[in-house]
Structures are given as C-alpha cells and as structure tokens.
C-alpha cells in the first residue's frame, strides 16, 4: 500500500529549485501588460475621466474606461455563483466600493503601463458610503436563498422558551473581523487568443468555473476556451470563483489582437476577489446545572455588498454539533460600500468560534470541565434529524481522547488567572472543530505506455494541498505499480473535466475517480493478459490475477507472473477513464484542538506556546501532506484569533491595511510547537476511498481554543477578534 504513506511531494523538486512555472511565470511571445486603475472613493459617480496623457505616454497601446470598456454577452445574475460578484466594472460611471476597477492601461512593458496608469485623472461626485456593520444593524435583513442553497434560518423545538426556563443561561455578543485570504501568489491572468480560441493562464482553484464563465461573458463556446494552471500559489477561496479581472483581460486581449497579462498588486488583491465578511453574533445557550444543553439561540449579522446579498459564514455547527432539542439560527446581512464577500478558508470557523467560546463560558458557569461538557452533549444522531444516526463516520470521541492525551489536558482546570510563568499568565483552552464534507464529480484518465509507465490526467488543480502527490499514490496503489511509474498531469482544461478545489473536496473527489480509473486500467490489462497465449497468465480466471510492484501475478501461484510492460509491449498502450459522479449526501468531519498561551502581564501580548490538534478526516491519504495541511490550518486559525484584521476607514471606505505590513498574517516566530494526530478511519459515506477534507476542518477550532486559553490565562473574555494587546490591558 502506498496510500497513507508519507510519500514526498512529487512536485517538491520543481518547487524548491524555482522550476515550477506559475501563472505569471509563463513566457509568451508578443506579450503586453495590463495595469488596473481603481476607484479612490467608495460611493458616488465618475464625472470626468481624462486619459489623454496616459494614452500618449510611451509604450501605451490602449486605455480602457467605462466610455470604451468591453461590452459582454452576459450579465451575471443577482445570485451570481459561480461568478464572484454581480457587478461588471467598466460598464458605467457608478462606484459601489473603493478599489473598484475604473480604468485599464495596456502597454508594451509592465513598468510603462504602471507609469501611464498614474497619469489618468479622475473627478468623482462623492456620496457618503455605508461602511460599518454596527451602524447599520437596524437595516439587517435575511437574504433570499441563492443557487448555492446557503441556509439563513433554522429552528427546531422551542428555543426561546427552553432558554427562558433553563437553570443556567449564558449569552455572548461576539465580533469577528473582515479578513483577506492573502495567498502568497498574487492573482494573475494571461489571455492569449489564436483566432477565435482563447488560452488563459490563470490563477484558479477551479479550471472548469473559469472556462464556463469566461466563455459565457465573451459569448463564445466553452470549447473555444482553454484554461491552464499547473501550479497555484495558494488560494484559500480568493481564487475560487470567477471575478471580473479575468474576463475583462480576455476581452481586452481579443479587441487588441495581442496577448495580455494582468498581475494584481497586493493592494488590488484586497478589492478584486472578495474577503471574509465581518460578523456580529449574539449567541445564547441554556443548560441544566450539570451542563446538559437544552437550547441554542444564535443570531448573526454579516456584511454584504450593494449588489449582492450573500453570507458565506454558515453556522451549522450550532445546530448540528451537540445534542440539543431546541435550537434557532438566524443569519442576516447588511449592505455596505465594500466589495462582495466570498468564502475564505473555513467559512464555518466564524460561527464555530462563537459556539466554542460560549461552550467555554458555559463550562465556567457550570464548573464542568470543558472537555467533559462536550462529551456530556455528544450527539450520536443528527440533532436536526433525530432518526438519522451519525453512523460509522463520526469519530469525534476519538479526537477528544487522542488530543487530550497528547496535550495532557487536565481533568480539573486551575482557576482563571492563577498560573504564572516568566512575567506572564498561562492558560489552556480547547475547542471542537466541525466541518461539512463536500465532494464533486471528477474524471481521471490514464494511459499506460509500452514501458509500463502510467500518464494520469485530470482537469483539476493542486492549490498547494498535495493533489499531485495523493493522486499519484492512489493510482499507483490501484494499479499495483511503484509511485515512480506514475506521472500525474493536472491544471489544463484539455484534460478530462474534474473537481474544483474549494470546500476541501479535491482529495476525496479526484482521489476516488483516480482509484476507479486505476482499477479499471488494471482490469483491462489483466483481461488482455489472461486472453493472450503468450502470457504466463494465459487462461487464469481474471479474478485470480492481481498486481503489485509493477507485476501481474496469479494469486494462487505467484510464480506465474509478468510485468505491465511485458503485456503492453505486445499489445500497445492501454487507456482508461473513470468518472466519479460524487455521492449525494454530505458527511461531516471533526476535530479537537487544544491550546496553551502566555499573556504578558505588562503588555497584554499573547503568544501561543503549544497547539495540539486531533482530527477525524476519514482515511489519511498521505501522512505527510495531511499533517502539513492540519498544521497550516491551525496556524490559519491562530491568525484569525490574534493578528488578522482588515481595517477600513469608516468615513472613506478605504481599506487601510491593503498590504502585508498592515494586515498581519502569522510569521514563523508566532508559531509554537504543534502536535497533530489523526483518527485515520475510513468514512465510506464521504467518498469511495473513505477520505474527507482536511484543510478547512483544521482551520476550525484553533481560533476558539486560543481565545478560551486567553480567558483562562487572564480571566478576561475577549469577544472581539483579533485579540490584540490593547484588548487585554
């Protein structure tokens, strides 16, 4: 078995030598460069836009504004999924948010385009923008359910009644920040037309989305559009949907008759492809004195944009994680003059933070150890559907046990603000991680050549998670060949259509298709061998032949054997292709996260000193890549807890932290020792190979665990993220 082994990344050598070619690294002859000019104001109209000087600047080929902007064959609808937003820039003079595209300059070199962009003069009629969620709470409304079927309202039992009569009631008002994905690779697109066929070198988490929606906007057939993305420098949701800069670049390249490359600046990445919405949440829990939960009432408001009503921050953990007869969840939105929000790694972590914080508050109120409290309210059945047992796919109890043991979680916690070390207060905290498990249809094709090497292809992506590697392993296992005999190519719509890399679904979806394609190819070759009188396997029933290490052999008489290469040298290459349509049901994945922090007595600085995560991600496909995903996810949660916050000026609507020195992502020095454990039990309900997603699950839990540890250290409950020093003084 190669699956599960900590196989080194097959793309590792290309990445450590600089040989891996990302979207902006492609060399294209005759390339021109586009630079975006964006709105300085957040609301109003353009009353004059003077492009004369820019157009005359050396090297400039074209200057595009709303006066001469590309006109498109389609208008994204009110619920735009899988477009990122409804608004198409450069169509009229209206400004909805700061940082909106208002002009594009194309020149022969990047530096000349950049300079010319500074010469464009714009006068605006400025209106007062709406920027604050808090100031607009009275205008909050429940959105229509869009095509993604996001859930905004849910109730069971009598939550308010049960809360009113509960012996113990705890309520909290939690605030989470606007955040930006900030993958290290800036978003880039290069559009190259050959006649009426378009090739896009694109930073995308979903080749198929980009192809479908770019074709729709440009009024061409999908077959005329090829999207290429062999390496992606992270996405985390920012590159998941199709945003205007992509089809605008393609349209400009078409009218210009030249290839055009656009790379967003770091600052532009803050307004071009969404962000995690700020939320204000009120959450109450009712319980008996022994901590048995009787009611949850959870009401959240999050920001949305002027043209789109959407909130991606689903809060299903409140209604699905713990056994509780009465629950009510309401999610509202307010329209602001900011861009349209989009999913960011682990949308459920926002509500999960509030839920796992209130669990900690309930623990303080009842005196029940936080871990025991969670076990006391463990759900064996879906609380939303009591007739549906969670079955064999829920191993949360194992997560609690594994994590508590690794962390040495105390049975009895010392009082808050009672443990000191080196001028700081020490605290520990824990939280449950919960995430739905999504899957998508995937297709994988394999050709095995006469040398016995398998070329595997699928139009999916490796966004850094390890798709290249786990598919290589899965196919090698299914075929019974060494991993080095398998080469996997992805990132090209010329390959078989496959799964998007959003919602932690790639490994389970593409991995399952890869397993089936590999098995099918093995069966084909066995069938050829047993029918071939030149083969040592001739005449053996196919079911009695199997393969290992590149050799096909008789199960009962392993001396009768030959290699794949032996068979294929006689018969020529063999192809297989498998489509996995994806299971209809949604499974869940779970975890338990434990944190220890030190809070400086004098300054309020919080440093995480230890993190432990135990996760139920189904079957572990690669111990090395899964572990790395889990650590990365937990540190992602650390950023949400302590450092990350997009700051917007409330009068101007400008994002003030549109860079990496104002928007603080965790650095190497913030990271403590991290321990990870996996339950590693297959969940056949999630996918045929028993795998579930890991990237987002692991980003859940850490935020609340750290916040709970801070409360345990200091005795202060900060309900407003991130927990910066000023909030603890």
């Amino acid at each position: 078995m190669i699956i599960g082994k900590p196989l080194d990344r097959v793309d590792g050598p290309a990445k450590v030598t600089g040989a891996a070619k990302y979207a902006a690294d492609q060399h294209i002859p005759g390339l021109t460069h586009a630079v975006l000019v964006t709105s300085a104001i957040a609301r109003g109209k353009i009353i004059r836009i003077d492009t004369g000087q820019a157009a005359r600047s050396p090297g400039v080929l074209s200057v595009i504004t709303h006066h001469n902007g590309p006109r498109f064959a389609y208008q994204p609808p009110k619920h735009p999924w899988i477009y990122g937003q409804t608004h198409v820039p450069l169509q009229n003079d209206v400004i909805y948010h700061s940082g909106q595209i208002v002009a594009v300059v194309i020149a022969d070199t990047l530096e000349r385009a950049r300079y010319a962009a500074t010469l464009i003069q714009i006068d605006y009629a400025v209106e007062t923008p709406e920027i604050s969620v808090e100031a607009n709470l009275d205008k909050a409304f429940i959105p229509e359910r869009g095509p993604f079927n996001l859930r905004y309202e849910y109730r069971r039992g009598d939550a308010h009644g049960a809360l009113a009569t509960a012996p113990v009631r705890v309520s909290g008002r939690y605030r989470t920040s606007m955040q930006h994905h900030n993958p290290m690779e800036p978003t880039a697109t290069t559009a190259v037309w050959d006649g009426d066929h378009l090739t896009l070198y694109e930073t995308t988490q979903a080749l198929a989305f980009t192809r479908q929606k770019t074709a729709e906007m440009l009024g061409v057939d999908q077959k005329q559009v090829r999207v290429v993305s062999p390496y992606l420098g992270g996405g985390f949701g920012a590159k998941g949907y199709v945003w205007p800069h992509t089809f605008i670049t393609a349209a400009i390249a078409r009218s210009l008759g030249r290839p055009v490359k656009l790379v967003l600046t770091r600052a532009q990445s803050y307004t071009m492809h969404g962000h995690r919405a700020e939320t204000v949440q009120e959450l109450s829990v009712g319980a008996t004195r022994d901590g048995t939960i009787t009611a949850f009432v959870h009401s959240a408001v999050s920001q949305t944009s002027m043209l789109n009503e959407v909130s991606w921050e689903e809060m299903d953990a409140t209604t699905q994680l713990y056994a509780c007869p009465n629950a009510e969840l309401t999610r509202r939105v307010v329209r602001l003059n900011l861009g349209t929000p989009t999913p960011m790694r682990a949308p459920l972590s926002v509500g999960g933070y509030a839920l796992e914080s209130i669990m900690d508050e309930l623990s303080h109120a009842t005196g029940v150890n936080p871990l025991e409290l969670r076990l006391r309210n463990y759900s064996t059945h879906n609380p939303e559907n009591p007739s549906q047992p969670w079955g064999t796919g829920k191993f949360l109890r194992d997560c609690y046990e594994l994590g508590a043991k690794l962390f040495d979680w105390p049975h009895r916690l010392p009082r808050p603000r009672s443990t000191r070390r080196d001028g700081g207060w020490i605290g520990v905290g824990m939280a449950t991680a919960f995430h739905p498990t999504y899957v998508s249809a995937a297709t994988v094709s394999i050709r095995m050549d006469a040398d016995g090497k398998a070329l595997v292809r699928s139009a999916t992506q490796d966004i850094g998670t390890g798709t290249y590697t786990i598919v290589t392993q899965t196919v090698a296992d299914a075929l019974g060949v060494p991993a080095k005999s398998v080469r996997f190519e992805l990132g090209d719509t010329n390959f078989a259509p496959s799964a998007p890399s959003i919602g932690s679904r790639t490994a389970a979806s593409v991995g399952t298709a890869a397993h089936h394609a590999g098995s099918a190819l093995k069966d084909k070759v066995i069938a050829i061998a047993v029918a071939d009188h030149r083969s040592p396997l001739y005449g053996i029933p196919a079911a009695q032949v199997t393969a290992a290490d590149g050799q096909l052999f008789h199960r009962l008489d392993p001396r009768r054997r030959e290699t794949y290469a032996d068979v294929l040298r006689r018969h020529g290459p063999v192809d297989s292709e498998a489509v996995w349509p994806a299971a209809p049901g949604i499974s869940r994945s779970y975890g338990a996260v434990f944190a220890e922090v030190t809070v400086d007595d004098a300054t309020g600085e919080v440093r995480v000193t230890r993190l432990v995560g135990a996760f139920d991600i189904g079957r572990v496909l690669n111990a090395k890549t899964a572990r790395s995903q889990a650590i990365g996810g937990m540190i992602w949660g650390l950023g949400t807890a302590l450092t990350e916050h997009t700051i917007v000026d409330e009068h101007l609507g400008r994002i003030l932290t549109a860079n990496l020195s104002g928007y603080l992502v965790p650095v190497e020095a913030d990271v403590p020792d991290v321990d990870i454990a996996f339950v590693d039990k297959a969940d056949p309900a999630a996918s045929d190979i028993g795998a579930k997603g890991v990237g987002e699950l692991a980003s859940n839990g850490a935020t609340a665990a750290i916040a709970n540890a801070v409360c345990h250290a200091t005795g202060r409950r900060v309900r407003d993220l991130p927990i910066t020093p000023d909030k603890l003084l």
Partner: protein
Amino acid sequence: MKSFAYVSARDVPTAVSAIAGSPNAKFLGGGTNLVDLMRGNIEQPDTIVDITRLPLTGVDLLPDGGVRIGALVRNSHLAAHPLIRSRYPVLSQAILLGASAQLRNMATVGGNLLQRTRCLYFYDTAAACNKRAPGSGCDAIGGFNRNHAILGVSDNCLATHPSDMCVALAMLDATVEVESTRGVRRIPMNEFHVLPGDTPHVETSLAADELVTAVELPSVAVAANSRYRKVRDRASYAFALVSVAAALEVTGTTVTQVRLALGGVSAKPWRATKAEEVLLGAPATEESFRQAAAAELAAATARPGNEFKIGLAERTIVAVLRELVTKGDAA
C-alpha cells in the same frame, strides 16, 4: 513610479554636488523605504543619487571611548558588531527587533534615521495627509489611529516615527554628522527629528542638500546595563505599538544613572527626560518606576483609538526598569 534620472556617486563630494541645486533630488541608500514609496508614488524625485558605493561603512572606536558609525553601515552589520554588542546592547537589540533579516541586510544607518512614517493614511494617496500633501488635512485624526502618536502631537498630524534604532540612539545621546557643499554640521540626535507642529511634512532638521555621513555614539558606561523592549501585535516583523529603550544603574537601593526613551508614541524618538528626572536619586522601587512613567505620560494626548498606548507605555516602562534592576543585580 515616475521617471527619474539615476546617478551613482563614488565619493561624498560628488554625491553632495549632485544633489545641490536639485530640490527634488534624493539620495538612495539601502532603498528599503524609498523604493517602496516611489513605487507607491508617495515620493516622486526627479533625480536619484545612489550613494551605496560611498566609503561610509566603518564602525570605529573613538579616542574618547565613543564609537563612530558610517552612514552606510548596514543595519544587520551594525547589530552584529562586537563594539555595539558589548558597549551598547540596547542598540543591537533595537535593530534586531526591527523589520526582517532581508531588510536589515539592505537598510543603512542613514536611511533608518530618515525613514518615513508608517501611518496608513500617509501611504494611501486617496486619503488626506498633511505630511504627504501639505494642507490637505489629516484623515487619521477622525479615523483609524490605533497606531498613532500620543506625545508631541499636533492638530495637523498624528504620525509616529517608525524606527527602533533611533529610539536607542536617542537614549544614547548620539550625534548625527551631516555634510553638504556648504560644509559639515553635527546635530544632536534629540534635535535631528522634529515634532509636526504646523509643518508635519518637515520631519528632520536636515536641509534638502545635506547628506548624513555618520552617527557618533558617546561613551555611555550605563549602557552596558541596557535593554530594548518592543510591544507589537505579532511575535516578530511588526512595528511597535510602544517600545522602550532604557539603561539603569542602581547603587545600593538608589538610582544613580538612568536613561529612557520611547518609540511608537511620537513623530520623533521620544527621550523621556521627565521620567529620568523623577528616577535619578530615587529608590529603585516599583513605586518610583510607576511615578516616573506617569510623569512622562502626563502630557500625553490620545484619541479613542490610541488611548491604550498611555497605559501600555507606562506599564512597559515599569516592566523594563524592573528587569534592569534584576539584571543589574545578577551582573
């Protein structure tokens, strides 16, 4: 970035001649701040005089026991220099707590003195900023000012000076040597940076045609027991919310020598002379430390967004002094 003429100077006379008479020319040292500002169209010089090849890279012991540091000594080199590590540990610590290894490798001493504020509005050309565009106003005053100044502020500007190194230099009473075609001038560190007043775009007492050539540190015996403490939002690679440079000598139970400077609180590295006055001759107790800190911060003016800095500065001063007492005892 706007087009500009590029000149590379090989010696100081050539460099200062190249800039004389060109009011919109700039010297380019390590470039870690200037190149970024030019790319953001915040600085738009006509001419760049690259001074990285000037022979101003020495770190030399002076006859009086002080140290002379060439203006082009790289930050990382200075922080690691044995003379600095042994005699002025506070300076070494301050430099190493600033920026990142890559930036310290490029950044020069002269450039560090002249770095511009990190006020978020200064960097956003769509916002009003009296420092960037004199007379345009200050959006930080009614806006997001959590990172902003509480000492020496004016109604025109709340920006802070972002340097860590300069806080240590202010504490050490360094002198800045500058040169132009008109000759050489020496400016005490405390007079090098100026408060915003009505002219926040004027940040130093350096004339437009003057080149920083060296920084001189006097011999400061008490600096052997010194420390730099930086409070920030993440464990490394972030600007100071508040920082404290301090040196302390306690004889018996009495403070016999003390030096104190603050960063992250003003448009200049803030020498805490009021606190020093309170401490000198006072018993080295928590109570004295608190009184001294309160005396220094008594003149602070804060906005709702940065009010926390007053208490934070006081607590950090006390914590650093407490640590120096313990450390001094151990030594």
